């Protein structure tokens, strides 16, 4: 499903270069549920952005469902995101001026799906996350847990090959976090590949496989347990 080989990501400003990922290698098989953990600044978000085709990488090779991502232009990346990937964001990222129905159909509109089919899929997804009958509500009329379920419904509506979840329970209380996690586990059991970035070790332990990112590289979970403290990304002044 997802193969990253020697991926590197270098951020460059006028003053400093920051190596966010280096020789990053990861393979995710179809149907897996993986938790990605790591300290702040370790490169988790950069990994998520590259895995989700939200930003380009500097070196290496990334194959997503058999497609060499490095060879795609911006439009092709947009289309691939739309067709293959579902996103769940920490802050839900629902569009406040659109009701739940309209929020969920956003990715379907970009795919050019007809009105009747959009309606069917949106209603099915709302049903799936337990929010059927609230299609005309605005996001701000819902609790945080309900909003995250809407975001999950939006991610599912496009029937993606895999879900990328960025701290999906980060803004929720423990009860709602458990509900959302349970929903993700159900989706995984139904066959969806899920990669979840999280700070929450307890949540991570509920997934079959954990990886840790340290200093922009993949570290074994067991190995990570021996690491003391947090290591920041290497920052090298320009010209050095």
């Amino acid at each position, binding site marked *: 499903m997802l193969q990253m080989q020697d991926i590197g990501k270098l951020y460059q400003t006028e003053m400093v270069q920051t190596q966010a990922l280096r020789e990053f290698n990861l393979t995710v098989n179809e149907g897996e549920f993986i938790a990605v953990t790591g300290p702040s600044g370790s490169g988790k*978000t950069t990994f*998520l*952005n590259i895995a*989700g*085709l*939200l*930003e380009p990488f500097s070196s290496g090779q990334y194959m997503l469902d058999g497609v060499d991502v490095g060879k795609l232009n*911006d*439009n092709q990346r*947009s*289309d691939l*995101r*739309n*067709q293959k990937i579902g*996103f769940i*964001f*920490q*802050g839900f*990222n629902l*569009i*406040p*001026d*659109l*009701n739940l129905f*309209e929020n969920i159909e*956003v*990715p379907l*509109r*970009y*795919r*050019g799906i007809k009105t009747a089919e959009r309606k069917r899929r949106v209603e099915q997804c709302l049903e799936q996350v337990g929010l059927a009958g609230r299609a005309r509500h*605005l996001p701000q009329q819902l609790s945080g847990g309900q909003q995250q379920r809407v975001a999950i419904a*939006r991610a599912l509506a*496009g029937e993606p090959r895999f879900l990328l979840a*960025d701290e999906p329970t980060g803004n929720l209380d423990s009860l709602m976090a458990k509900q959302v996690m349970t929903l993700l586990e159900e989706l995984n059991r139904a066959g969806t590949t899920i990669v979840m970035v999280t700070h929450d070790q307890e949540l991570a332990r509920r997934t079959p496989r954990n990886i840790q990112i340290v200093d922009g590289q993949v570290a074994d979970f067991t190995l990570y347990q021996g690491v003391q403290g947090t290591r920041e990304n290497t920052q090298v002044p320009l010209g050095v």
Partner: protein
Amino acid sequence: MSEIKPILSALTRSKTGAILLVMQIAITLALVSNAMSIVADRAEKINQTTGYDEQGIISYTLLTYDKDTDIPKQFKEDIRQLKALDGVIDALAVSSIPLSRSGGSRTLSTDPEEHSGKTADSGYIRANHHVIGALGLTINEGRDFAQSDVIYGRDGDYPSVGIVSRAVADKLFGKGNGLNETVYSGDDAFKIIGIIDTLKSQWPRSKMGNSLIFLPIEEALTYQKFIVKTTPQKRAQVIKQIEPLLLDLDRGRVVMNIKGLDTSKADTYAGDTLMIRMLIAIVVFLVIITALGIFGLTHFNISKRTKQIGTRRALGARKSTIFKYFLLENLLVTALGVVIGGVGALVLGRELMGHYSVPPLETSAVLITAMMMLLMSFIAVYSPARRAANISPSVATRSI
């Protein structure tokens, strides 16, 4: 176009900015279309042909204060000397200067009993038989004055003939008639021997703008106006020569208001010219303010919706989709403003017509202004929309 429904939904739920912009566009359209209509009307009036050779005519006024001067004799000598100047074609005394907003007018009638016949108010110019040629006019029907038609001095008989503008003839005798008809004015009467189609009076902006008669009377008064016909190339040179020449001939007088007929016309239309400039300045100001409003609101919306745009990109929107989204959103707001403004413009036009002397507002003027507003709106939104399209999808995962 599948984005129209969600854009409308979003606009109706977050409408303050959009409503303000709609109002701004509507007010701008209503004011601009009426202002442009007035500008077009005034410009058309200014640019109307007067019938005169405006570039080749000089007018001046002589005030003779030396009581010993034999005025008729002196004027004859003046004219002779003026005609000797390089570039001068003709020169003669006239009772008033065309287009100058100064002169005399009379009520003309088709019947000796004024109230029994058709009447027309008209300006008049008294001058000798050279006047038609000197002013560069063309007689379209009938004939010019002959020397034998001319009456000399005010105390003489009233002339038996006159030349009138087409507007006077039509008003008195019906369209296309009037030649050889007799016109009455008070105790006087004259026969129309010539009709001029294109002819403006001394007051071209008034209701008498096209009504003028010429009467063949040559006068020589202490306060007398003159016209000098020159070649256009030599006119500027002749203008400089007139005062020294006349004062050399006789010091007992003052030469005033030496100017070209085009200058007299410009003075007459100075109010219209000023209004045109002011209205154009207001129009430009309004359009710039509205364009800045669209530009500013779109910029604000983009800044406010940066994360939303990033999320849309993350969900699969192409750059072009985001660009089109903002263009379409702006088009919908502008179109609503244009529709409301179009109706407002017609209502305002009717009100202005009822209260002031302005022409009826043409629907085409509103449509042209509306098209200009849509174009202006597109130009104003283009750059912010491009900026929005370039927002990275990775913004969606940032904590902002």
